[in-house]
């Protein structure tokens, strides 16, 4: 089976709002950059196009209707994954692995600013009979999860707040980040309590942006670029949509996704073998919970490591050097591709002043947010 590589990336955003571009124009501009980076002509060089979107986040039904033109995919082979961009990566990876396709384009974007009632839409994802009739802001689910997580692991609120300080600081060095800031632990701890024990500054703010990537089989990748980033393994998993029976303390989906990705990538000791990790941090505590599920540390240990600076950009295990979702902005279904973008740039040595030294293996992780239990993990490397 052929190896699979990422051979081109393009990104526009992320910004709190990109009002001058329509979502189509936003996608076009990112696509042009990605094709330029990969040196491909989408009208003849690309076998399959994958777009990642959910209808209610866009404002119309059947999103792929409105996609082919701006990606160069007219009368070509395109489809939608109703999921995070990293889930799109998983499908692109499998397509190439079949041996029938050599080049796949992956697209994911957020035009969150088009959506005036994001929280109402998220509430519309709750079970219509069992949960939704209770009403309220859907992020109460995150408050409940954080509470149980802190209870079971003895992680402290200070440790969670430290994630925000670190990620917003990292974002200052990232031109793709919308919400970089130099803030103190006290500022986080004193921000409004929204869903006890979850505070306002611990919640990622939506942002507009788009990431397009070009993937290729070994044979094609080596022709196109001398800096391929290899996809060594992808794993994805849905625990259960039922709030009543899910695990409230551990991110089981992410653990199973990671196990699958590590198995394919032959990673036996993630903590040692992974040089940097981009981990979903939609809420600050999620970075800690996800680090544990990804086996980057023991259960309950992530808070301590964060406090000790191990996960800082210059630490022993840099986590979210991009600034994460807290720093870059919550890119809806592009959240996973924000992570992927950073890992690719880091592995290519193109991360500017964010560059982590001596990186060979990177991990990108996504979670689909409230109310889901779907996690995706991908292991990438600049060495075949």
């Amino acid at each position, binding site marked *: 089976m052929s190896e699979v590589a990422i051979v081109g990336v393009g990104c526009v955003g992320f910004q709190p709002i990109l*009002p*001058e571009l329509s979502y189509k*124009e936003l996608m*076009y*501009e990112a696509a*042009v950059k990605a094709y330029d980076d990969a040196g491909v002509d989408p009208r003849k060089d690309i076998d399959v196009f994958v777009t990642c979107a959910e*209808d*209610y986040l866009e*404002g*119309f*039904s059947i999103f792929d209707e409105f996609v082919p033109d701006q990606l160069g995919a007219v009368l070509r082979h395109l489809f939608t994954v109703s999921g995070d961009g990293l889930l799109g990566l998983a499908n692109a990876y499998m397509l190439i692995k079949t041996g029938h396709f050599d080049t796949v384009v992956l697209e994911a974007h957020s035009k969150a600013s088009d959506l005036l009632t994001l*929280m*109402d839409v998220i*509430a519309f994802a709750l079970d*219509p*009979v*069992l*949960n939704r*009739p*209770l*009403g*309220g*802001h*859907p*992020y*109460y689910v*995150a*408050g*409940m*999860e*954080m*509470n*149980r997580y802190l*209870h079971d692991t003895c992680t402290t609120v200070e440790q969670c707040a430290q994630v925000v300080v670190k990620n917003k600081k990292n974002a200052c060095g990232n031109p793709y980040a919308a919400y970089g800031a130099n803030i103190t632990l006290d500022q986080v701890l004193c921000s*409004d*309590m*929204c*869903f*006890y*024990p*979850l505070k306002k500054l611990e919640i990622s703010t939506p942002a507009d942006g788009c990431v397009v990537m070009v993937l290729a089989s070994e044979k094609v990748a080596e022709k196109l670029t001398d800096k391929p980033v290899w996809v060594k393994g992808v794993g994805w998993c849905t625990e*259960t949509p*039922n*709030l*009543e*029976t899910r695990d*409230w303390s551990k991110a089981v989906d992410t653990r199973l996704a990671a196990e699958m990705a590590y198995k394919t990538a032959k990673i036996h000791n993630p903590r040692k073998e992974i040089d940097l990790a981009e981990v979903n941090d939609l809420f600050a505590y999620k970075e800690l919970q996800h680090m544990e599920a990804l086996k980057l540390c023991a259960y309950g240990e992530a808070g301590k490591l964060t406090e000790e600076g191990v996960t800082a950009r210059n630490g022993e295990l840099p986590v979210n050097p991009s600034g994460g979702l807290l720093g870059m902005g919550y890119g809806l279904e592009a959240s996973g591709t924000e992570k992927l973008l950073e890992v690719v740039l880091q592995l290519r040595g193109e991360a500017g002043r964010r560059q982590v030294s001596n990186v060979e293996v990177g991990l990108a992780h996504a979670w689909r947010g409230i109310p889901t239990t779907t996690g995706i993990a991908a292991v990438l490397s600049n060495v075949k």
Partner: protein
Amino acid sequence: MSLDKITNPMHVRHWLGDMEADYIYTLGVAGERFFKEIKENGKIMGAKCPRCNIIYVPPRMYCEKCFAKLEGWVDVGTRGVVHTFTVAKIDVDGKKLQKPEIYALIKFEGACGGLIHKIGETTPEKVKIGMKVDAVFKPSFERKASINDIKHFKPAE
């Protein structure tokens, strides 16, 4: 890159619209029976998986783990334990709530799962993980076979 860009902020234009329609949801085969028990008898039921030997609350038609069809139903009582909770201070529009809402997952003895619901008749400071709570039902004439037939859970005496 496109050759023209919008550089004049007055030329930025938005189009308003919505994706709103009316929906009606059947409760399903298991849901209908579950909510009928709540409505008519004030009972919270679970459904037992004969293969995995677990009791699902709320009851389902099938076991999500092994896909067995669930037919045996059991009463799990109306007293449960707070597995986790939160105190929501803002509403869905982000506005501060006059009175914060306490949301919790309430688990029942011997059962897998539980009910997501609100906690009432107490103050946020008094709610703890592991505390026992009782279901408070609406008066039977007000019940409609809905999760809101339970008004809330309150701390057990």
